[in-house]
């Protein structure tokens, strides 16, 4: 498995994080920012219980989206991703890596960060990429770095001050490899100290079976046109170095290798300790640092017998690179920035007033209708279609009130008569909104969305609910029946003829056709109709994908279109009661019948 470094160099790295590891993510963001990239290479994070996480982009904060899994990520995102960094635990890493590799068609490769992955499972990871043109680095790797292009992992450091080092940005000619993350960084530091620059570097991780082996890495460097010299730090244990010897002898590797093998100390002990790395224990003489170093030396590899000597050899590598890039001095203080407590993407205060969705509030108000502003703010971005504005306007008007007898209005009236103030009375009405009253627009949207996404036929869909004895939100009315339809629904449906396919409304009506057969009042209600038409508009006119619509139902977007107009109705009822002032209401005793539970 050789890595095509040039292919990565000529790509735009688009990284998906599998798992959340804030210091590493922030360091990659900082690196990209200091590289003066237009946007971060990290596109999304797969992790639980969040929809987004704020990270610094320079000194400002931006939101990186979170998704539970790769089924939820938008398709255009999945298509764009070409690299991944898996920071999930050893227990989950095989599962998550396999899904990632199979779900993303443009993936070039990834890095596995987890330590303590059983050997057998690591070999399982190798199976995942068998016969695929995908590289995997790790396990327990700090990652891959290509100066000025890519930082895929903790490699190079995680603190902003570590990232000011010019060696990370200016491409050079020296490839640096080590099993040890710390030593990789140490070597980058040494190369940098001599004013030299690297072509790329990676740490394969110190497990017994690294997915990218030292030989793979060295062949990668041999094939990389920018690399002229290879700096390799090996350790006692394992026999990888003999493979390197073979390749050097056979002429497959021509570029000079400068090598040091750590662990000669081990020979001083009758029973050597297990050193820090899993692999770092010589099973026999062949695996000792000394034997491996000798074999490399005999094959013509430049070897050092002490680290000091090794550093001297590195110093003697000819350097052809010129520093063409310097970190912007205005950003040398990134380590002192502070995270804000809250984030908002709706509005912000400006010296002259308030800005809503990126536009000055006054300008926005002067040039647009109330419905335009409401639907844009609820969507979190300016709407693009006349249709959404129009339909919002229609629903806002149609739903202001549905008579004084409905639960919400009645609660407002009773509260008002109890002498409570406007806000309390309004709240009493609002708190009534839920699954049975007014608050099923979102549930209905979720139903139609699930139905259309899964391509289920209407009959099976209804059966599914019947089987679980669940009501279908969006279907059913207390008063109206199939032969006496809700006039508001008729109006909404009439409006919807402006749309092309109207697949959500079609689906909703197909459900109604079945349920109303069973019972005449199981008709498409106003919540259900609204939900279906909003879905149709968002999908046809605003470019929302099914996954994006799902995101809207998750945040209860659709219920807002009931709550807003009905608040008007509740307030009107409150004011009306205040004016009538009939005093405290008491329910006549006969209106409550005393029942015994069996």
């Amino acid at each position: 498995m050789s890595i095509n470094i040039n292919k990565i160099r000529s790509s735009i790295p688009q990284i998906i994080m599998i798992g959340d590891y804030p210091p590493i993510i922030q360091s990659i963001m900082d690196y990209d920012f200091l590289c003066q990239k237009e946007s971060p290479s990290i596109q999304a994070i797969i992790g639980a219980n969040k929809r987004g996480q704020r990270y610094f982009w320079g000194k400002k904060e931006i939101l990186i989206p979170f998704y539970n899994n790769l089924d939820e990520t938008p398709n255009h995102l999945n298509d764009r991703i070409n690299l991944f960094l898996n920071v999930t635990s050893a227990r989950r890493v095989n599962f998550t890596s396999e899904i990632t590799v199979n779900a993303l068609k443009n993936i070039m490769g990834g890095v596995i960060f987890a330590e303590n992955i059983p050997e057998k499972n690591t070999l399982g990871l190798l199976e995942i990429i068998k016969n695929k043109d995908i590289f995997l680095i790790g396990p327990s790797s700090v990652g891959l770095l290509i100066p000025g292009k890519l930082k895929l992992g903790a490699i190079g450091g995680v603190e902003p001050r570590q990232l000011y080092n010019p060696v990370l940005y200016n491409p050079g000619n020296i490839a640096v490899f080590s099993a040890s993350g710390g030593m990789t960084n140490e070597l980058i530091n040494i190369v940098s100290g001599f004013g030299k620059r690297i072509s790329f570097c990676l740490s394969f991780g110190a497990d017994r079976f690294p997915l990218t082996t030292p030989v793979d890495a060295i062949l990668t460097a041999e094939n990389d046109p920018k690399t002229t010299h290879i700096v390799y730090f090996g350790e006692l244990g394992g026999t990888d170095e003999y493979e390197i010897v073979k390749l050097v002898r056979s002429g497959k590797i021509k570029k000079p290798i400068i090598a040091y093998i750590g662990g000669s100390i081990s020979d001083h002990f009758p029973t050597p300790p297990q050193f820090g790395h899993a692999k770092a224990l010589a099973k026999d003489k062949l695996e000792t640092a000394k034997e491996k170093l000798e074999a490399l030396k005999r094959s013509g590899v430049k070897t050092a017998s002490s680290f000091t000597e090794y550093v001297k050899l590195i110093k003697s590598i000819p350097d052809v690179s010129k520093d063409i890039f310097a970190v912007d001095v205005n950003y040398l203080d990134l380590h002192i920035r502070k995270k804000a407590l809250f984030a908002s993407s709706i509005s912000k205060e400006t010296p002259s007033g308030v800005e809503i969705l990126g536009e000055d509030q006054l300008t926005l108000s002067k040039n647009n209708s109330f419905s335009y502003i409401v639907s844009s703010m609820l969507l979190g971005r300016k709407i693009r279609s006349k249709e959404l504005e129009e339909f919002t306007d229609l629903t806002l008007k149609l739903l202001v009130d549905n008579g004084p007898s409905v639960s919400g209005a009645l609660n407002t009236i009773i509260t008002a008569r109890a002498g409570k103030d406007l806000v309390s009375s309004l709240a009493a009405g609002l708190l009534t909104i839920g699954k049975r009253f007014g608050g099923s627009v979102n549930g209905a949207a979720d139903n139609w969305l699930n139905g259309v996404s899964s391509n289920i036929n209407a009959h099976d869909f209804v059966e599914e609910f019947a089987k679980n004895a669940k009501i279908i939100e969006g279907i059913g009315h207390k008063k109206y029946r199939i032969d006496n339809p809700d006039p508001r629904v008729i109006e909404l449906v009439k409006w919807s003829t402006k749309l092309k396919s109207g697949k959500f409304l079609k689906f909703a009506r197909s459900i109604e056709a079945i349920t109303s057969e069973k019972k005449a009042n199981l008709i498409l209600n106003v919540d259900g109709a609204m939900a279906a038409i909003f879905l149709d508009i968002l999908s046809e006119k605003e470019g929302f994908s099914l996954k994006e619509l799902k995101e809207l139902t998750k945040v209860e977007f659709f219920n807002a279109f009931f709550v807003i107009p009905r608040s008007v109705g509740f307030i009107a009822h409150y004011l009306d009661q205040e004016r009538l002032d009939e005093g405290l209401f008491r329910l006549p005793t006969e209106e409550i019948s005393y029942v015994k539970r069996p």
Partner: protein
Amino acid sequence: MARVKISEFRAKSILFSELDVKYYGLCVNRSDDIDKIISSLSSDQTYVIKIDQGIKKRQKEGLLFKDIKKIQLKDNARKLFSKGYDNLLIEEFIPHKEVEEYFLSLERLRTGVFSYYSKKGGVDVEQNKNEVRNDLLNEKTFSRIDDYFEMKSGITKKIFSVFEDQYFSFLETNPFLVRGGIPFFLDLAVEVDDTAENLTGIGWKRSDFVQAKLNLTPEESKVQSLADKSSASLKLKVLNPNGSIFTIFSGGGASIVLADEIGNTGKVDELADYAEYSGNPNEDETYLFTKEILSLMKKSTGKNKVLYIAGGVANFTDIRSTFKGVIRALEEYGDGLKKQGVKVYVRRGGPYQEEGLKIMRECLAKLGILGRVAGPEEILTNIIIKK
């Protein structure tokens, strides 16, 4: 994080149970009441008594006695304990001829599970190297090994399945017998992948790990139990309790380089320990870890003691917070260290190194044990060479 040997008793229990072979073995620890354990044994047969601590070539080293009568077991146990070992295994002795002794090994390699096997097993297997066959284990080769040893069809596959399911990394039985098509392992050594501790069901556990080393020092055991509970890596091995060079290294690779450099200076004999932490342990962990090394240091009779707190340029280990823990421990032992004339030499780089190195320098100066504090501007090994 590595391959570890498990006790022969556990290895046999796992394997025999999978092959439906009855197995009797008695584990005896130094602290056990041996009379009580032996009392259940029959006097009608003889026994094998051997060290069960992952030692190779026990027969040649005199760490195994066979064909022992019940009444002699206690004496033989004493003999073995007197060599400094703690755990013994008693099994029934199975009379057999030398030509019946076979050899089989399995090892996990990158390419798969690889097997070496030979009918010329026993103590002289190495002299009969040419007789040893090898195969990569798979559906095609299982039967080849079954046939070669005249074992019932499917036995090799079963052994292979146990090897896989139980996350074995290495298995060697030498010798083993085949009777009625069923293998009987006389001596068995198994290495498991300790990262799979929670994946083996009722198989092996951490308590089945054996160490050739006779006794862990209290400091080593404490670090071991600290490491067991941590996501970071923490290691301590005492090399010379009365040494004068003490180490708290960080980074798997850098720690080896630093240890090598001590070797290069010709002072290996004075090296008291190999201690290494990495993977961003938290402040409490580095505090508890450092305390153990300082405890060793306090006890050592070595002269002109030095302590190296050294490591490479970390990628994600927080220097400030790890050093805070180290400093807490140094402050606790400060007076004692000063009295002994200890000097501390520090070299480190990584996230928040500026703050980390600063508080370390201040602490060592205040305690009067400052040797030198260096950052990544100095080559890693300088701290060992240049005082």
